[in-house]
């Protein structure tokens, strides 16, 4: 089990290794999102091989309506 802070919320997840695993858990794999881990942007091409660690702070953002 690892504990992560995702978009400001503490969550605990089991059997989760990479960013892609996290996006799958959140049903975001089909969405256009950008991901930051501990303040560093992780390019989409590296989502599958970037391993997450206990205590990581993750931001997942997308485009929404705004002016």
């Amino acid at each position, binding site marked *: 089990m690892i504990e992560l802070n995702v*978009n400001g919320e503490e969550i605990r997840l089991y059997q989760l290794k990479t960013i892609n695993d996290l996006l799958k858990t959140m049903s975001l794999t089909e969405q256009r999102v950008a991901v930051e881990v501990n303040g560093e942007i992780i390019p989409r091409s590296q989502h599958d091989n970037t391993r997450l660690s206990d205590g990581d702070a993750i931001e997942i953002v997308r485009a929404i309506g705004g*002016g």
Partner: protein
Amino acid sequence: MALEVKTNDPLEVGGRTFNSRLMIGTGKYKDMEETDLAIRASGAEIVTVALRRTNIGQNPGEPNLLDVISPDEFCILPNTAFCYTAEEAVRTCRLARELLDGHDLVKLEVLGDHKTLYPNVTETLAAAETLVNDGFKVMVYTSDDPLVAKRLEEMGCVAVMPLGAPIGSGLGIRNPHNIQLILENANVPIIVDAGVGTPSDAALAMEMGCEGVLMNSAVAHAGNPILMAQAMRKAVECGREGYLAGRMPRKAYASASSPIDGVIGG
């Protein structure tokens, strides 16, 4: 059938060329369908979007904004709305670049306070410097201060976008004289961003020589947003053509349009 004079007059900004001079925001619409229809009625090619965490800001079950307003069809202009520091704004732009596969055109806005949403100019200058050095093409929202506008241009921003009035106020261009001063010194496109309420506000900005107008609330909060989007498209085109045509000189007294000689019974 009316004669239509064609003007070959594209907008060039950040190395890209556009036929439409109206830029439009995607916020405050009733739903995604209205967003889609209004944007298409506006004819805008540059469409601004916000970035937010995935757990907020969308009605459940609605399609993703970028599936409706596709980057293949529109030039997406990610903005830094509700950033209050240079650091937040730079972070947002870098995330946007990742989100949009390396797209480098951004709308920088760093706000000062919640009540006026006036730009924080010192933070805006700091963010602009970092972003330009980082390879972004920065369209920058700022106050209508001519010196600040010039400074942002000199720093390498690709467009300077002074407010006409506070964001979402619909008060129109409160200080046309300042916009005029900015225009006189500008070597990059000047785009009025914020404050427009009516088509005549948009036309005024264009008649003065602005290269474009960016708006959101004036369309989204209109009684009929789709019809207003269409009206704004025409207003921007109309104002631009008026500017290109060149207005008549102002005179203090009347000047008859019909000949004075040969009046019947004279």
